[in-house]
C-alpha cells in the first residue's frame, strides 16, 4: 500500500487529504502514480498536471523518476510559504 497525502491548496482543490493506493507495477514511480491518480476525474487531472507541484517520498523531496516501494508515504503539495 502507498499512503498518499495532499496539503494546502492541493488538498482543498481535490477535497482530499489522504488516499491509500495499492502498490503495483503501474504505480512504481512518482510519475506513474501521478498519472494513475489523474484518472480519478477532471479535477484530479487538472491539479496533478500542475507544473510546480512538489512531491515528497518518505518526507524527502524527489523527482518524477523516483521509484516507489510498497509502504512508502508519498505527499503532493504546492510551493512552500512558511517563515
Amino acid at each position, binding site marked *: 500500500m502507498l499512503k498518499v497525502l495532499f*496539503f494546502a491548496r492541493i488538498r482543498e482543490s481535490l477535497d482530499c487529504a489522504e488516499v491509500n493506493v495499492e502498490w503495483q507495477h503501474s504505480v512504481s514511480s512518482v510519475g506513474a502514480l501521478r498519472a494513475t491518480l489523474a484518472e480519478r476525474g477532471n479535477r484530479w487531472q487538472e491539479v496533478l498536471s500542475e507544473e510546480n507541484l512538489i512531491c515528497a517520498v518518505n518526507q524527502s523531496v524527489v523527482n518524477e523518476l523516483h521509484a516507489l516501494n510498497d509502504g512508502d508515504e508519498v505527499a503532493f503539495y504546492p510551493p512552500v510559504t*512558511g517563515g
Partner: protein
Amino acid sequence: MLDVRVQTEDFDPGELQASLLAGQQEEGAVATFTGYVRQTNDERAVEGMYLEHYPGMTEKTIAATLKEAAGRWAVGAALVVHRVGHLAPGDHIVWVGVSSAHRGDAFAACEFIMDFLKMRAPFWKKETGAQGEHWVGARESDKQRAERW
C-alpha cells in the same frame, strides 16, 4: 544543541534566547530572527492567517538545515520555533536563534537557516482579509535568496 519546535502556542523571544545559551559562557555572540504576521501583505489588508504544515517532514527538513548550518559555520547552539494554526496580525510566526563564538558565523548561520526554511520546510500560509481567504503564493525572491548560499 540543535533543536526544532513546531507549535500552536506563542513563544517569548527573550526566553528562547536565554534557553539557547543555557548558562554556558563560551559563546559571546547570538544572532536571532523573528518573523511576525504583517497587517498588510502585497497591498492586501490581512485580518488573519492560518498556517498548515506537514507534521514530521517539517521537523525533519528544518533539522537537516540546522545540521547543514552547523557543518558550515561555528555554531554553538541553534533553535528554530515555528507556529502553526490560526494567527493574527502582529503575532509571532517564527524564531531562529544561533549562538557562536564569532559574530560573523552567528549572522551567516541564522540567515542561512531562515532562507532554507522559507525555501524547503513544508508550511503553507492562508490569509484571511476583506476579499475572503486565499493561499499565499511562493516568492521568486525567496528562491533567489536561498540560491546565494
